[in-house]
């Protein structure tokens, strides 16, 4: 047996992990190009002496299952790079090289990922690896960052341009590296909710839910139905709030100011609803392992429902005006396109993947808690041509935000209705993590698939903590999207993805 099937959020004894060759890991994914398995993550677990156990997690989105396998190798070992055939591996292999000195022989562009403080590769970002360069009469480079013009996180973008046209964009991150994964290992895992919320503060509910799910899997805890409903309400409000903010920012980048202001104000109403729910506009403090910290009474339920209905209707009306405007379409359509084959090959996830035609949504393929008990459904909205937009361009990534705002807010209203019958409390007692286990927890955050994984030691302590934000796959999607576009369209492409720097840098 080369892989072990898992139920979602499952924990298995670490010793049950199958051991295969590294090439076999590639074979499992290679099959996925024909409808098999998708690579979710690949990470190393350091063991005694210099041994490193690689853990690879795969998703079968059609069957709704996960599979896991392992590779036994050591620090400084050389493995045949899978990247040339399977681009989805390229950052994972760079990560293994940076963390453990494992060399992927034949990797096309081996350089550090995030310059962690304890890496064996160059520590300081200035001493790092060279960038691609290009020669020619009209060619030039544009270097941006790490400090950007707006109020956003830091990162470095290097554009190789031929006149106004971008030939290639190289994105170098790592400026945000805070050593998050290691901090999860200090003290009891169940006390790390606040840290999980800070992995990427704009997706606090998603990361806190993934972390809580992991603690629950390790302790075999089942949360009350009511807690699941409140978690899903928090997640969907987070999604709707961010999507409204991104539509505002997309309108801003094309100088469509009514959209900028009105979507931004709708976002304020939605995140103020999160504040009314749990005391924070970003949903911090809502999630705790075992359930949630705050309940809502009927009065608050009605207040939330009224706001949600109002914003759903107003956002729908404004979006109908925006997506019918020729001056908007002229900028959105055919800008920053990632086609379906490319998206699948590089492992795009979340709304960006769906806008390129991939059927990736953990809420549908691997539902847990409320999503499993109260089926989440989508009602694909038709655009002006009567088609569902999966064109993979800025238009599709903007239009899908509009769709998801409607889907999320409708689902919040359904969940609020279910609260009337779910009266089984808001938190269950959490059992301590079982020793010697490996567990995975997947949540569909607004950016997409959010994975937290942990390996426990002999006393149930956290031996390895691993996080994969949706941004880890999707930054490369942005780099490919801007190829052959005007350099001035970069802000628009960037906003249509809106990826996390700190969720990537960890």
């Amino acid at each position: 047996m080369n892989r072990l099937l898992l139920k979602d959020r499952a924990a298995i004894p670490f010793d049950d992990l199958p051991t295969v060759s590294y090439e076999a890991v590639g074979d499992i994914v290679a099959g996925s190009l024909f409808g098999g398995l998708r690579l979710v993550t690949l990470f190393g677990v350091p063991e005694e002496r210099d041994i490193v156990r690689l853990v690879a997690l795969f998703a079968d989105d059609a069957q709704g299952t996960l599979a896991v396998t392992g590779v036994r190798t050591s620090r400084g070992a050389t493995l045949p790079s899978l990247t040339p055939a399977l681009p989805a591996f390229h950052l994972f292999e760079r990560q293994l090289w940076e963390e453990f000195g494992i060399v992927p022989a034949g990797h096309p562009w081996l350089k550090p990922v995030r310059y962690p403080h304890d890496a064996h590769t160059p520590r300081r970002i200035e001493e790092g690896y060279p960038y691609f360069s290009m020669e020619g009469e009209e060619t030039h480079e544009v270097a941006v960052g790490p400090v950007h013009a707006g109020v956003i996180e830091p990162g470095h973008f290097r554009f190789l341009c031929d006149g106004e046209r971008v030939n290639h964009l190289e994105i170098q991150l790592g400026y945000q590296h805070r050593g998050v994964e290691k901090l999860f290992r200090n003290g009891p895992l169940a006390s790390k909710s606040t840290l999980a919320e800070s992995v990427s503060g704009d997706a606090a509910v998603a990361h806190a839910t993934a972390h809580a799910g992991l603690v629950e899997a390790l302790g075999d805890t089942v949360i009350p139905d009511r807690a699941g409903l409140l978690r899903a309400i928090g997640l969907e409000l987070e999604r709707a709030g961010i999507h409204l903010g991104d539509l505002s920012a997309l309108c801003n980048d094309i100088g469509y100011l009514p959209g900028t202001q009105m979507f931004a104000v709708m976002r304020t109403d939605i995140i103020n609803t999160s504040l009314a729910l749990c005391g924070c506009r970003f949903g911090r403090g809502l999630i705790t392992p075992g359930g949630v910290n705050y309940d809502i009474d009927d009065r608050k339920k009605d207040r939330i429902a009224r706001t949600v209905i109002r914003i759903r209707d107003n956002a729908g009306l404004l979006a109908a005006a925006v997506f019918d405007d020729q001056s908007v379409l002229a900028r959105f359509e055919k800008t920053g396109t990632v086609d379906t084959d490319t998206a699948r090959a590089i492992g795009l996830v979340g709304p960006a993947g769906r806008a390129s035609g991939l059927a990736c949504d953990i809420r549908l393929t691997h539902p847990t808690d409320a999503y499993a008990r109260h089926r989440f459904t989508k009602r694909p909205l038709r655009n002006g041509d009567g088609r569902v937009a999966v064109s993979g361009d800025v238009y599709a990534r903007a239009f899908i935000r509009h769709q998801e705002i409607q889907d999320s807010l409708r689902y919040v209203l359904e969940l609020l209705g279910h609260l009337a019958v779910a009266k089984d409390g808001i938190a269950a007692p959490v059992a301590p993590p079982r020793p010697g286990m490996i567990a995975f927890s997947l949540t569909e955050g607004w950016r997409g698939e959010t994975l937290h994984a942990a390996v426990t030691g002999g006393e149930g302590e956290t031996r390895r903590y691993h996080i994969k934000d949706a941004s880890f796959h999707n930054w490369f999607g942005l780099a490919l999207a801007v190829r052959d576009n005007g350099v001035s369209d970069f802000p628009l492409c960037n906003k249509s993805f809106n990826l996390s720097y700190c969720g990537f840098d960890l």
Partner: protein
Amino acid sequence: MVLRLLRARWRHGWQAVPDPVTAQVDPMFRGFPEIAKEGTLSAGTIAACPGAALTTNPVSIDLGKCHLCGHCARAENSPVRLSSRHHLGQTRRDALVVTAGTSFEEYHARAEKGSDEIRRLFGRSLKLRSVSAAGCNACEMELNATTNANFDMLRYGIDIVASPRHADAVIVTGPVSVNMADALEDTWNATPAPKLLILMGACAISGGLFAASPALDRRFFNDHTPDIYIPGCPPHPLTVVNAILNYLGRGI
């Protein structure tokens, strides 16, 4: 199409907070901690504080480290109650410590105004340059929100600018990673004097959740003393606006 847009504009109405100085926030907001003189916190509660902000005898909370997560306030028989008072800005690091019995009025009175020179120069026009130094994007989004149609900090002449060359103040978010230490120093040096240094959020003020991480480099603060501290995780936009207005002598 135009009619739909006009209808949307009609429904949008008037959204600016009428007076950000006197505006209240939702009672659920976790703001100023009121600590009763009686009662204590268990060793377990103190150990579980994510920012290590709690001390006992007497019970006190360092708002420079506190993430306002509410964990200690939810403990059984806790002397801590998080009120929704959101005017939390301070001008000295030690003024951020709230001890059992400290009232909000006492706390608020500790915040000092800038010098006459500062108020003359920046009282009606203050331009901020933001540096996110490993911030998680929550502080950054709240800083952005101060300029949206709701909070509209621009009504006071306070704005965020794209270049340090145009700025009167540098506002730092995040705990300052090793990989951002040089960029922060460079941005500070590129800002013309006289200039203010503003720290936004628990991570910027103390390292916060990440204080123990070897991936931080906070030596910048050995050489530069902040003028304004804005606690929170993230601070509410109204907390940010009022901390700055107060320093400029335009608050309450």
